[in-house]
């Protein structure tokens, strides 16, 4: 959806949504060890692979619209930042993206 609510979702609702998305990406056994939290890391805890990052980016786009440009955000990361990436950082990124100005209608997608 692109007609995002004027009230940006808060971190708790984004975290819940991210858990739903990651369950779709990784499968039902996502929460095998412990519940998803802001401190859960993508590399060490979830062992997310590059192809799953691609799927995550697509689902964030489907869910929140083009203001949540995960691909461009991740393209700005160094290797150590990717290794250390947490669920909390992605939640904060989504919240920050949605609280910014909406893109003008018809503006070209970035990247």
């Amino acid at each position, binding site marked *: 959806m692109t007609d995002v609510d004027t009230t940006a979702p808060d971190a708790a609702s984004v975290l819940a949504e991210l858990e739903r998305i990651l369950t779709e990406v*990784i*499968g039902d056994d996502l929460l095998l060890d412990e519940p998803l939290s802001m401190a859960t890391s993508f590399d*060490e805890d979830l062992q997310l*692979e*590059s*192809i799953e990052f691609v799927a995550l980016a697509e689902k964030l786009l489907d869910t929140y619209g083009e203001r949540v440009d995960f691909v461009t955000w991740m393209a700005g*990361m*160094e*290797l150590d930042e*990717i290794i250390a990436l947490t669920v909390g950082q992605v939640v904060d990124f989504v919240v920050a993206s949605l609280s910014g100005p909406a893109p003008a209608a018809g503006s070209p997608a970035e990247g």
Partner: protein
Amino acid sequence: MSRFLFVVPPFTGHVNPTIAVAAELVRRGHDVAWTGLPGATQALLPEGSTFLPATTAEVAAYVDAAGDRRPDLRGAAAFKFLQEEVLLPLADAMVDGVDAAVDAFGADVLVVDQQALAGAIVARRRGLRWATSATTSAELVDPLDGLPLVAAAMHQARVDLQVAHGIAAGDAAQGDLRTSPHLVVAYTSEALVGPVPGDAPIAFVGPSTLGRPEADDLDGYGLDPDRPTVLVSLGTLNAEAGARFFTVAAEACRDQPWQAVFVAPAELVPDPPANVVVRSRVPQLALLERCAAVVSHGGHNTVCESLAAGLPLVLAPIRDDQPVVADQVVRAGAGVRVKFARVKAEPLRAAIAVALADPDLRAAAARIQASFHAAGGTPSAADALEGLLPG
């Protein structure tokens, strides 16, 4: 008669594909030799092969120790470790020895594995003709596409390495040590890899390991000729790390209408179901001829040998190039993926059942099989390498 020097890393899957190619070159009247780390690498080569150690035994021990530290790492952390703690130091340590091996052997052409970058440095420095030996297909399509800062940092590390070994900075920044501008021998097919961007001179030759000699002891396995057989293998490097996976796989096979051969140390599968045979080594090519499907970690050789036998795959990639190779198979329609670290018995059982029964998977595997036959294998690789010789 010309002299081909194979520059290899100390990894079985990267050495094996060179052996048949080298034998074909010898059959055509050329001389061949290998250079790499002393010890394990030499032991992989046929009796009587010429091997020129490129380093001291201490370097080989360092790489072995690094390998022992890696089983816990996955994803980006494993990538960082492989690049920074293994491949770059390995290249640095091998340059002088490879250079000496070129002189000692009188090499005309270097055949350089993508994980033995010292060969590329020496070839560039000396102005020698060289081929890239892409013993896994993961680097043909850049896995760092979409992560430009990471790709740039890796490129810079390889530039710095060249400069440290006497290549001018401007020259070092050109091209890529992983991709020879003269020839890239890829032991796969375009039908499996998909379109490759760029203009690298790639010769897709298909697997070269299909004729390797094996000790066929299959008659001792007690396999039922009327039941479909599934090979379950995590390759040579990962068997020890697979304790959980093998336990799950044994449960997945229990009481099923198929039988399975696990390539694993016996202690990792202590109480196998009646329809599971466990062997620490198998004659894989002969066994694949009797199999109907394969469960694999996505190692390039096992995947290509399975597809060369027309077999669908269940893929449980662990790290490194394996997720990329697994993704190629899935996109080609010849396999299904499961999660190595998390999969449970029930979904793994379902995945095996699909691999055994689904006609679309089998048809796709047959298409890849045909593409491998058309690629020509070992003779095609030798043709391409002979093409590098002057007039």
